[in-house]
């Protein structure tokens, strides 16, 4: 783990939902696995005190890409940063998604801030069966540009709330369709996104006997397991999402 000052190479709006941040760092790009994150100090000023956790979206050589939404004060300030501005980033942090699956078909269920780490995972995996990447968003305006999904080794399907792109409804509707076609027990779900979405996915997983894991996003301060602010309720009690997570298996979670 390294705490590095990085210089922004690019920081621009990608679509109605996402901004893309690019910087370069050798230490922060070594041995990174999808599902891991960086705890970024956006501003040195005391007013914006805490760091913010961001999933890795893409790593190529020393080049690191982050895809983010404006969700609060921190990301608002981040969106105003320009090329040449610096940030302080601590990472790589956290437990990644399972990379190698034994025979099961990988189904990635993503929404909102959960899209970037799962696209990263879809680009990295080398499964025999092509994984499925199911993405949910509000409307066509939030759908990622094709170029962003070009490297994903997965079949990508979208669900939009208003039906303006892909299937109309929540992303779980795509999962329901899939279960009708394929044996749920042959699937392995990896999900990241809004809590309501992940809860719905885990409920289906429980009902149909699907294994899987979820990346849980809690408010975080230190990122190193000290403050106990980001804990997640598991069968073995509270666990830190920064060190013991953010990826937890469905069977661990309460």
């Amino acid at each position, binding site marked *: *783990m390294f*705490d590095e000052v990085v210089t922004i190479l690019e920081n621009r709006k990608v679509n109605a939902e996402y901004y893309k941040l690019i910087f370069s760092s050798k230490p922060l790009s070594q041995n990174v696995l999808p599902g891991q994150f960086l705890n970024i*100090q956006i501003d040195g000023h*005391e*007013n*914006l*005190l*805490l*760091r913010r956790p961001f999933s890795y979206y893409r790593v190529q050589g020393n080049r690191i890409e982050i895809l983010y939404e404006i969700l609060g*004060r921190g990301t608002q300030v981040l969106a105003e940063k320009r090329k040449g501005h610096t940030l*302080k980033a*601590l990472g790589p942090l956290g437990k990644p998604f399972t990379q190698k699956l034994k025979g099961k078909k990988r189904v990635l269920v993503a929404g909102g801030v959960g899209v970037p780490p799962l696209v990263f995972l879809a680009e990295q995996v080398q499964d025999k069966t092509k994984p499925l990447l199911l993405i949910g968003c509000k409307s066509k305006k939030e759908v990622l540009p094709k170029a962003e999904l070009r490297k994903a080794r997965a079949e990508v399907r979208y669900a939009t709330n208003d039906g303006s792109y892909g299937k109309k409804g929540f992303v779980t509707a795509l999962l329901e369709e899939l279960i009708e076609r394929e044996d749920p027990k042959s699937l392995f779900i990896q999900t990241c996104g809004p809590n309501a979405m992940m809860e719905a996915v885990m409920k289906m997983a429980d009902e149909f006997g699907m294994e899987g894991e979820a990346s849980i996003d*809690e*408010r*975080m*301060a*230190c*990122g*190193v*397991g*000290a*403050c*106990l*602010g*980001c*804990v*997640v*309720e598991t069968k073995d*009690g*509270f666990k830190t999402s920064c060190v013991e997570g953010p990826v937890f298996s469905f069977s661990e979670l309460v």
Partner: protein
Amino acid sequence: MTTKIDLTTKIGNLVFKNPATVASGTFGSKDEYIRYVDYEKLGAIVTKTVTPKLRKGNPMPRIYETPSGMLNAIGLQNKGIDDFIENKIPYFSTILHGGSANLCGGRKIKTHLIVNIAGESIEDFVMLAKKLDREDGVSALELNISCPNVKKGLEFCAKPDLTYDVVKAVKDATKLPIFTKLSPEARDFLGVAEAAIKAGSNALSLINTIRGMAVDIEKCRPQLANVFGGLSGPAIRPIALRYLHEVKREFDIPVMAMGGIMTAQDALEFLITGAHLIAVGTANFVNPKATMEILEGIEDYMKRKSYTSIDKIRGSLKTKQADEKYIPAG
């Protein structure tokens, strides 16, 4: 010519190699920061609060960022004293070589382990003190009688006689030096401080967090599941400094000061006001190397001022008596 800078700070028989330590609850209870901080370079390490039994802690969400600060309502999550003695102390004993601050046969000075404890009754505090008294690796105890996030957390600093009773009982139960950690929530702050000193507290720790609240306007709910949380960070620094000054004006007692110390400049404000030790808290979450950078900054300041000993800084605050008259006490 380079002059050697002496940062050694003494509290009773305890010799600290420098005044830099960490605030309880912000540095974990074991090796959370070992990748970023050379533990031996700290004057002392203060653990997260240890309680008699396992405490699950409060429900989520537990933290929320506020302007220049954060609210937390962790609720003293820890595995209890027996787990601490079995699994945590041996770790510190290994890396810190017994926590001994003596010059062990000419070897360099190691650091101190100060264990922060909290209970719901005097008996709890006494039991914890007795158990830790037997442990070689422990240098001192910090009595947390000011946690705002648990039931009865603030009870023992609500009234001076309650403070006196708990500190006296612990004092009678252990030979370990005692730091009593106080909260500005105590209505009779100076009375409580005086009671702790009279009962035999070797030092005071000032200040614990101050209760605050924030609201999610979309859900019309408090931002914390516990509703209230302790406010820490730069937002409370001026308040912490004020309490330190009030205590130092009234009593001759060493103080471990904490409250929003982020930089060497902040630490120096507390040292000048009279603190023996400065504890870095919330800053650890923002900058894991904060303690090390603060120590370097203190040395740079001393070089610039041509001070060779930290004693020159401590309590060097200049106030005119005429000005002081107008500062209301308590």
